[in-house]
């Protein structure tokens, strides 16, 4: 009987998943072949979106500390991964975000004040116009993946030139729904782009404790779908890979899995998590040097496409947008239980109607 070298099998399995990069940490193009087909203006816009996201993060943190926002999952450090991927999507594409993916949702078209209302826990934040192709951030880790398979199959059946795209984190790859979602999309050859934003930690649990797999991208093999690992701190690589994956999926070839190597410059959420309990200062410093904004800014500086003055002007503009959104947020009317009850069913049963009537009386109508 031939002997099987299991150690060799284990070592071989991740060899196809090399990290894709376009810019190095100094802002130099190291992979001209993959350099995205974007005009200078578009690259500047991509960078502006990243700056917007960073400012939104900083302001959201402060607004949370002031008690003016509620649930907030920090995004700093993930701008290339989040904003770079979103930049490659079309408005016809259907976004299924996780709880950390609010920047993509806003860039896809959700008014910022609605994102703030979602953070505070107000139903108006989740009232989406009929033609807005997205659902609110998913709290149940993995659920967005199986739903994305369904959305993608729906888009395919309608013959839409669009894809479903969804995000989870490194911890989320351990969920059953993560596997089922990819596997369903694969079996139905449905147009979905699945992102894993691997920021190294699921709250306090390091990536290595989730799986013995050397990459998360290789999990696509289990579904029989193509997968890539990308430098998630490199916006141009993120854009280029996402664009290619989107086109591949939209052309009827089936789903793609994209693992993005990234980091969050802060806690899991602002609900009491302290990363000092599980991360070292050295590690944080190492990743701060990979800040996706720094390398893009350097790249644009070198090409004479961005200046300190432009950044200041843009910063002021973004801050004003945030102030305006916050003002709208704070104007939202008090939520009513009668409206909650009304929203449960299309055809309201008598027992629910009786509760609506009772609450309307209480609410003084």
């Amino acid at each position, binding site marked *: 009987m031939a002997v099987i070298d299991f150690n060799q099998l284990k070592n071989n399995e991740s060899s196809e998943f090399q990290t894709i990069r376009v810019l190095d940490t100094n802002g130099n193009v190291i992979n001209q072949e993959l350099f995205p087909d974007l005009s200078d203006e578009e690259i500047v816009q991509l960078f502006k979106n990243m700056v917007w996201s960073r400012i939104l993060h900083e302001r959201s943190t402060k607004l949370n500390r002031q008690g003016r926002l509620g649930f907030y999952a920090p995004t700093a450090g993930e701008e290339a991964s989040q904003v770079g991927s979103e930049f490659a999507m079309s408005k016809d594409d259907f976004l299924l975000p996780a709880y950390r993916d609010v920047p993509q949702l806003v860039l896809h078209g959700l008014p910022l004040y609605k994102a703030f209302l979602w953070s505070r826990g107000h139903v108006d934040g*989740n009232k989406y116009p009929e033609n807005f192709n997205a659902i609110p951030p998913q709290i*149940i880790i993995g659920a967005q993946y199986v739903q994305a398979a369904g959305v993608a199959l*729906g888009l395919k*059946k309608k013959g839409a030139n669009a894809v479903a795209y969804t995000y989870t984190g490194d911890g989320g790859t351990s969920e059953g729904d993560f596997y089922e979602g990819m*596997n369903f999309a694969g079996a139905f050859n449905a147009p979905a782009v699945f992102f894993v934003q691997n920021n190294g930690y699921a709250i306090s649990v390091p990536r290595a404790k989730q799986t013995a797999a050397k990459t998360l991208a290789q999990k696509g093999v289990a579904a029989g779908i193509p997968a890539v690992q990308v430098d998630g701190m490199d916006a141009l690589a993120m854009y280029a890979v996402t664009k290619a994956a989107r086109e591949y999926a939209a052309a009827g070839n089936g789903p793609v899995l994209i693992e993005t190597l990234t980091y969050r410059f802060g806690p899991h959420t602002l609900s009491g998590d302290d990363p000092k309990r599980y991360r070292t200062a050295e590690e944080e410093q190492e990743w701060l040097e990979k800040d996706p904004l720094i390398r893009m800014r350097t790249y644009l500086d070198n090409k004479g496409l961005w200046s300190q003055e432009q950044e200041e002007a843009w910063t002021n503009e973004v801050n004003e947008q945030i102030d305006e959104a916050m003002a709208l947020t704070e104007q939202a009317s008090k939520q009513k239980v009668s409206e909650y009850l*009304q929203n449960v069913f*299309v055809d309201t049963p*008598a027992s*629910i109607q009786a509760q609506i009537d009772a609450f309307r009386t209480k609410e003084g109508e």
Partner: protein
Amino acid sequence: MAKTTMIKAITAALDEELSRDEKVLVFGEDVGQNGGVFRATDGLQAKHGEDQVFDTPLAESGIGGLATGLAFTGFRPVPEIQFFGFVFEVMDSIAGQFSRERFRMGGTRKMPITLRSPFGGGVHTPELHSDSLEGLVAQTPGLKVVIPSGPYDAKGLLISAIRSDDPVIFLEHMKLYRSVKEEVPDEAYVVPLDKAAVKREGTDVSIITYGYMVQESLKAAEDLQKEGINAEVVDLRTVSPLDEETILASVKKTGRVVLVQEAQAQAGISPMVASLIAEKGILSLDAPIGRVSAPDTPYPFAEAESTWLPNKKDIVEKVKEIVEF
């Protein structure tokens, strides 16, 4: 019009709706070419095509997610969960996701999903096929839970469920699939989702029940009639939300109640009906509320079904106890 079984009535309802609306999609494990493990979808893929009737990978949670995603893109999904004992795998999609989407999105989306699934004892299935788990979904706001007790209701309720813009869990008792024949119209018709049915008029006691226990209760009522007890049998049909009006009107008329379910005493729908009557009908009662249900153990090993499942004899005994109180 012809006498037919519940399984044939269900197939006919699916056939009608697949023809009426191309957005209706029937999918699940083995529902396509195979026509379903009970033949509920027999011939539907051949007639309506693989675009509308299709098999899925073996993963209940994936099926639930598929249904939710298809509903978000404008379809009217009719997924099947092969046996309702497998609902635990898809509990998040049902109770955490599609039951909540309309509420979650402030009424701006609808989830016209009808999830069909067989359940129920008396046919010696292996483990976790026959469990009565309707209580779990009945406790989930945002769902309508429907359990027909025979062929006529099954067709009309299923057509109503599929046409409803609200999510419906449609539970089909396996023992009812072929054991009862009724006259079922050939054409489409609807049975309302918000109405219980008085299946037998009576004056002395209200037997309030659902599913296969409706058949046992009707047989018990015949036996009781011979002893001079005139029982009214109320079939809940939609077990959540409850048709309070029909339940309370029957209780008011008879003054005595026996609640009958196949589920364990701590499970099922009877606890909700008892609570409703205690809250809104207590002054009509001349005796305590009687209950017939299964023992509070996990569902029995197949050979023990006959001693474990509630039956006509249990109902007769309990009714006499309540009438003689």
